[in-house]
């Protein structure tokens, strides 16, 4: 592809950096990213990936915009009652016409996850429950798809980049899912997903434009109250149920989620 003169202007601050240049920008414009969830984490991820000029942005979510979302879901203003994927699509189209949005108003489930991720280069996990997180991890490991993890709880968040088989996956660290989702009822500081989501988006842009060092084998643990970032070294677990030496999970089976 060749950048148009409008694109050269729009992305001038990217292009002027030698390490990114026109080549890096073209990689972004040719890329396909699937964002799972368009809520707290999804809002900043969608916002910044759209601004960066990701060519195709798939967005999957089955929720509609509620007033209690707007304390943190900053892309849905004025769209109460609308499906979040439509609201997100409107936002992106206003911000950057270079981006093609594919909106999926549905839940990600064992029956559709493999087909959905197969159309994309990378997947961003902005979901809000353990079932979807474990499902996405397993599908991405089985299909060797980079997965950009972010999750939040009250004043704290976790970020890591999963390059299947190269580094540890989610199950290497948290092999099975807790039976309860404490985050469901705990509340969240509205700015927190902004911090975590922009770190996920940073990792996506770096990966696609082949820049820097990915957050692989490390997890960033952010604590807003202490204003601390802890970097935790995480290793591949040989006993990991999905990417270990003798995996028990070798296909997506609804019983596991």
């Amino acid at each position, binding site marked *: 592809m060749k950048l148009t003169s409008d694109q050269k202007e729009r992305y001038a601050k990217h292009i002027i950096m030698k390490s990114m240049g026109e080549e890096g920008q073209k990689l972004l414009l040719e890329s396909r990213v699937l964002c799972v*969830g368009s*809520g*707290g*984490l*999804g809002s900043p991820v969608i916002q910044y990936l759209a601004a960066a000029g990701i060519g195709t942005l798939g967005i999957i979510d089955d929720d509609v915009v509620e007033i209690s979302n707007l304390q943190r879901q900053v892309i849905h203003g004025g769209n109460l009652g609308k499906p979040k994927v439509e609201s997100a699509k409107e936002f992106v189209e206003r911000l950057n016409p270079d981006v093609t949005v594919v909106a999926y108003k549905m839940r990600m489930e064992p029956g559709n996850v493999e087909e959905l991720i197969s159309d994309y280069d990378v997947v961003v*996990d*902005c*979901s*809000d*429950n*353990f079932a979807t*997180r474990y499902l996405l991890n397993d599908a991405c490991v089985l299909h060797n798809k980079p997965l950009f993890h*972010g*999750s*939040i*709880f*009250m004043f*704290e*968040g*976790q970020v890591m980049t999963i390059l299947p088989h190269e580094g540890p996956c*989610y199950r290497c*660290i*948290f*092999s*099975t*899912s*807790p039976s309860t*989702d*404490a*985050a*469901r009822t*705990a509340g*969240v500081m509205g700015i927190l*997903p902004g911090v975590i989501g922009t770190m996920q988006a940073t990792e996506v842009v770096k990966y696609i434009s082949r820049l820097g060092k990915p957050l692989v084998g490390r997890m960033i*643990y952010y*604590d807003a*109250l*202490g204003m601390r970032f*802890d*970097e*935790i*070294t*995480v*290793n591949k*677990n040989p006993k990991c149920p999905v990417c270990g030496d003798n995996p028990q999970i070798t296909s997506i089976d609804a019983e596991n989620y």
Partner: protein
Amino acid sequence: MVMAKIKLFANLRESAGESEMEMQGENVQEILDGLLTRFPQLQELIFNDVEGNRELRSYINILINGNNILHLEGLDTIVNDDDEIAIFPPVSGG
């Protein structure tokens, strides 16, 4: 006596009502025993009860100075003065 610093995260922090504390013990097991004596409500968040035996829940991570005890000596890992022990679960919010 060895004195280590404990850091709790996410719902463990919420349940204990404190995020950082100091605890005495020669190894991770002793440190955890002290922690659970002080905060008995953490017992079921950190351990499974398997036929009367305590087993660390598979999604709970315990790190000493950033290293997972799974890759050290597990609960028998020796603790030194001023070590920082972090205990964290996964979180699901998005």
